[in-house]
């Protein structure tokens, strides 16, 4: 019997060691949310985390730069790949479970939530300058993403109406636990979303430093504000914001048009997504180079240029024709591809100074003003770089054509068609099929509080 007690006591001891401590194991590759953001460095890292999300394929890594061109593919380009989601975007045959519509929505709000978490934790930052800068960056990120969302998922903004059509959900509070992550928020109107975007970006302008390395600074925010106002048909404010960017004198056009796409952080680039060999949007199933390129070992050659578009729009001597388009040698060889997106690890310019010149020129022309410079000078400046002669007294249409030439395949096409009330093929600017479906999962997960777009 003595022995039995011995064993039982051994067993009991073994049991004691256990209980609490033994079963407490912390993960190694993640940290507990409760203690994640505690000091300057943590909050700063959280802001960088937001940029890393912006660089993903669902946002500027691919979709926000590629889908607007695919949507306007008529007489412009074609989608040749096997990916159904993109095929539907190009063909205007999206279904409510379109994978691209879903992943962009999800990633954008994920980044917005991370930005909101930064804003809620600013008190943890002791350095006042850093705190202001981080606040500006978080507002910038939140602002541009709401802007991208509203122009994808809502019917277009029309300055002639009250814009009460449903926009997207405005999210300005952080979600960090089950309760806040389960909130069901309805879509705001397009007008309300634009108001919020303008508010976030104008505040960001006041908080951001003049220079912030490769991250957003004051002029990045101005550049986006210019885009936002232009989309709203608010030409005066668009012009003035563009003028601010140009007058900063931080930016200049590169001598030849290929440079901003093969070098990193050139002076032509106002803001670009940083990529490197390890961290990029993708090399086989995602990423701009993946879908656009057709060189040996690089790219799937899924987006093919319409040769008619190139011959119609570009002069033979135009450097842009020479630099930006080529005959593929990799996948689907022998066809024409866009050389702006040619390497996996290359940075992705999101907004270039050329666009600011064109925006200022267009607005000045429309308003018959010459803020900063005359439309003709601004236009000439852009054209001369590419070896094409000046246009005397350019019309709005001349300037818009220049935009098409200069900014082709950089994610502006469908937005320009919408704001100028044009059409792509048989789809008019305000066609329901040019609006992305709200991901059906959102409609379901919100119990119908988030409503679906017409036609889906």
């Amino acid at each position: 019997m003595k022995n039995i007690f011995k064993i039982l006591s051994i067993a009991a001891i073994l049991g004691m060691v256990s209980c609490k401590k033994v079963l407490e194991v912390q993960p190694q590759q993640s940290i507990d949310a409760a203690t994640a953001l505690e000091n300057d460095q943590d909050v700063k890292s959280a802001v960088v985390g937001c940029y890393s999300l912006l660089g993903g394929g669902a946002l500027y890594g691919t979709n926000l730069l590629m889908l607007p061109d695919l949507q306007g593919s008529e007489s412009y380009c074609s989608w040749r790949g096997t990916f159904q989601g993109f095929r539907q975007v190009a063909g205007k045959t999206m279904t409510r479970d379109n994978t691209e519509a879903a992943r962009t929505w999800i990633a954008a709000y994920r980044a917005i939530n991370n930005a909101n978490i930064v804003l809620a934790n600013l008190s943890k930052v002791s350095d006042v300058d850093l705190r202001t800068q981080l606040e500006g960056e978080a507002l910038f990120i939140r602002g541009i993403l709401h802007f991208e969302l509203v122009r994808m998922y809502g019917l277009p903004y029309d300055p002639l109406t009250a814009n009460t059509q449903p926009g997207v959900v405005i999210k300005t509070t952080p979600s960090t636990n089950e309760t806040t992550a389960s909130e069901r928020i309805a879509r705001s109107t397009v007008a309300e979303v634009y108001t919020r975007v303008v508010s976030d970006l104008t505040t960001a302008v006041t908080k951001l430093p003049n220079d912030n390395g490769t991250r957003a600074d004051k002029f990045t925010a101005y550049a986006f504000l210019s885009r936002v106002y232009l989309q709203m048909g608010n030409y005066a404010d668009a012009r003035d914001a563009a003028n601010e960017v140009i007058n900063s004198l931080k930016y200049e056009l590169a001598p030849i048009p290929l440079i901003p796409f093969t070098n990193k952080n050139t002076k032509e680039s106002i803001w670009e997504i940083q990529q490197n060999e390890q961290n990029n949007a993708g090399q086989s199933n995602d990423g701009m180079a993946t879908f656009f390129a057709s060189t040996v070992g690089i790219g799937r050659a899924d987006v093919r240029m319409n040769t008619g578009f190139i011959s119609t729009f570009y002069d033979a001597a135009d450097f842009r024709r020479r630099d930006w388009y080529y005959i593929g040698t990799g996948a689907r060889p022998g066809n024409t591809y866009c050389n702006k997106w040619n390497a996996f690890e290359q940075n992705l310019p999101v907004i270039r100074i050329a666009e600011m010149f064109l925006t200022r020129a267009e607005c000045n022309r429309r308003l018959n003003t010459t803020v900063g410079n005359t439309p003709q000078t601004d236009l000439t400046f852009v054209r001369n770089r590419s070896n094409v002669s000046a246009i005397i007294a350019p019309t709005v249409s001349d300037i818009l054509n220049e935009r098409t030439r200069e900014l082709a395949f950089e994610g502006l096409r469908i937005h320009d068609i919408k704001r100028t009330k044009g059409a792509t093929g048989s789809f008019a600017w305000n066609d329901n099929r040019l609006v992305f479906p709200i991901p059906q999962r959102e409609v379901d997960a919100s119990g119908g509080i988030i409503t679906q777009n017409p036609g889906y």
Partner: protein
Amino acid sequence: MGKSKLSLLIVLLLSGSFLLAQNKNITGKVIDAGGSPLAGVSVKVKGTSTGTTSNTDGSFSITVADNVKKLAVSSVGYEDQEVDASGSSLLITMAQSTKDLNEVVVVGYGTKIKKDVSASIAKVTSKEFQNLPLPSFEQALQGRASGVYINTGSGKLGQGLSIRVRGISSVSANQQPFVVIDGVPVVSQSLGSATEPDNPLATLNPDDIESIEVLKDASSSAIYGARASNGVLLVTTKSGKQGKTKLNVGYFSGWSEPTKKQEFLNATQYKQLFTAAAENMGYVAADEFAGETGTNDWNSTNNTNWADEAFQKGYIKQYNISVNGGDARTKFLFSGSFNDQKGIIIGNRLTRATGRVNLDHVINKSFKVGANISLAQSNNYRVPSDNSFSNPIQLNALPPLHPLLDANGKNNNATLYYNNLIELEDNNRNLSKTYRSISSIFAEWNILSNLKFRSQAGIDWNNLQENQFLGRRSLDGAPEGYSYDNQVTSSVFTNTNTLQWNNKNAGTHAIDALAGIEYQRGIANGASVEGRAFPSDRFTRIANAAIISNGSSTETQFRFLSYFARANYKLKNKYLFGASVRADGSSRFGSDNRYGLFPAASAAWILSEENFLSNNKVLSFLKIRTSYGRTGNAEIGNFSSLSLYTSSAYANIAGLITSQIGVPALTWENTDQFDVGIDFGFWNNRISGEVDYFRKNTKDMLLNVPLPATNGFTNITKNIGDMMNTGWEFTLNANLIRSALNWTTSFNISTYRNEVTRLVSPVPPGQRTLGRLAVGAPFGQFYGRKYMGVDPANGDALYMRADGSTTNDYSLAADTVLGNPNPDFYGGWNNKFSYKGFDLDIQCQFVSGNDLYNIAGFFQSVNGDYFDNQTVDQMNYWTKPGDITDIPQPRLYDGNGANKSSRWVQDGSYFRVKSVNFGYNFPRKLLQKAKIDNARVYIAAQNLFTFTKYKGYDPEVNATYTGNLNLGHDFYTPPQARTITLGINLGF
């Protein structure tokens, strides 16, 4: 003369009187069917208790009265038999009993006589699968164990296979059974980084295994508590046997080929179809072909059968050797094996080398110690994921117009899609190397005659090394080569201490009891590195890479601390009661819910022991049993309950982002299972069987509750779903012919009906897949739009609307139920014949009523929508008004009939002659001269015939990359191999 006559008479009388008491001595030898001597066999005078037992060499000697006519010979595990007590030297061959109720079954933390078991346990012994070229040992259960549904998934070697015990008991946690080898819980989940899981159990040598028990109901499995919901596989390896040291060597070798190849268009058909497809859309086929492929092959005379290039003739060879023996105190088994298989898919090869030592030693009356040590190494030259351009089966998408080789005689790389044969050139490799040891040591202490303490320490150590090199000509290796190295080491340590009490001298009341503590700790860590840009393809190691493009290291951990107890009570040898309970604590469970309790109880009544049946000539055995209990599923991820942040790099700067939102109450999933069954035997158990009904209610299933993504998270994992499985299992064994020709047959059939009973919201099918979750529907139900054939007027593909009418506008079609990937029933039918030295074993396996969806149909059976080569049935396309066909008009790029629909849903029922093994045992007399105990030569075949209506490669398919929910999906998934082997076994 008178005197002598008298004396003769006296002698006669005396001898006559002696005759009544005269004895004769009979000697003999008892052997088994394989010719090996059997020790411990009881040889008795029929109807008496007079007798003896055989020695270690099988010999016996018995002195019986002269008038004894018959001897009764019996041994546990063998058929009783009577032999004529004539002749002085007998050779008695014992036949293995089909289902002996005295047989011992392994249960959790112990063993039990089958007759006394009140639970539902399926057992498969080594006799049923030895010498078969099994890809992995679990396959031995397929068609042999009722209630166990196995889908091998594909013909790739060393690939994970799906095992479902009594239906599907989870949605997001693991669905595979818990595997315990010699008391050591092992890792049966893939450690690798590939999209498709490898099978860590494929490193085990099936020939080392003595038996596999499947614990199916709650009363047998609840002793494993939080990990038993998917059933438990108890694997017992062979151990040494007391007696003469036996040496067994075996060798087999054979070849393999695909069970089926598919037929695709030849060049003429291809051009015909695509000419029509292009012209119908106003294109010129040659121009479009040139535009898409960048070649002028449209005008070539090539007629390449790309589909066949994916396959090769495989081979298999295996050597194994084992030595076993021992004396009363020490028993040992040494074994070693080497297996080399070249798969049927080009580039696929698996080698496996294993070694094992099983030892046990009785120190004295009180103490016993032992060890099971095993070491295995395998090299798996893998085939890429189904959903990869480098999957050789995807070659069937290439147009026959492309030449196989280019002008330089190299693999042609100017093709519509990637010609992945390039990945088999030169130094390209995709190798997974595994080192694994599953080992344990134990000590037993008989504290009292009926009280035993046992302590076991075991480790499952698994080291996986993945090594991949892709040269500059390959898709992912371009432009300058790519190399990837990954090492993962998982070690799971388990310490089990049990105290077992058993009252041996049980009369009316027999009680045994067990209590124990188990501690388990698992750690897995890994490191990987990836490099690009090599001076040439002759350099393949990362040391030579110009760019180190990626690197990572990881670690994860879990711990379990468990307490368990069990008691069995047997009253009057006919009423059985059992109860068990386990408390499991785990680091995986949320802080609010650390410990789970898993009780179970069972009862059985052996009716055949009752007076009213005990003398029944026909019904020899009848037992009714029932059980109820609770088990759990703890395979919920190591840290699912936590809210976490993780790193996220922005180019060269480190960032921090939210990664997961958790609930502290998150915990295991519960399954309550009810089982009722009957075990029966007729005519002295010549016919025996089992019938079971079960109902499994799974509650608190972990589900991802979808959140509005507008809050930054798409879902939160909670214990919130319910699912139910009900089913029947029926097993019948019969020894149909028992003479010189012996025929035993065993038939089993099982069903399960799965129904999801609670969800937060339905989980719809993915963009390419059909499987969904919905309340009231079975797991993975096919859901989508119904294809209604072709409009004879215009060749448009038609789909069904909600009101049942047809439409050619896909967006107007309604989602509806398209099928069920779960079978109506499945089972096996096994036959064993023996005649003199010959034996024949035929095992068949079947599945019925399950639907399959071929995702690849969208590419390969879609009336020339794009330039992928098409299956030959597409030639029956619509050409002119009035044509009645279900292949729409070909329209290049137009998507006529190309949308996801029931067009590619098919019945997946099949009947397969899974294995055939025909052998001959050489007569002993012949062998004795060569000092050989036994010798058997055989020819065996795996997957000899398959009968199915499925048009794809193989109806036993599961494209695992599509995820848990998409059962029965096929996507360029390779078929299984038909393997023929010749082999020999020698025993010394």
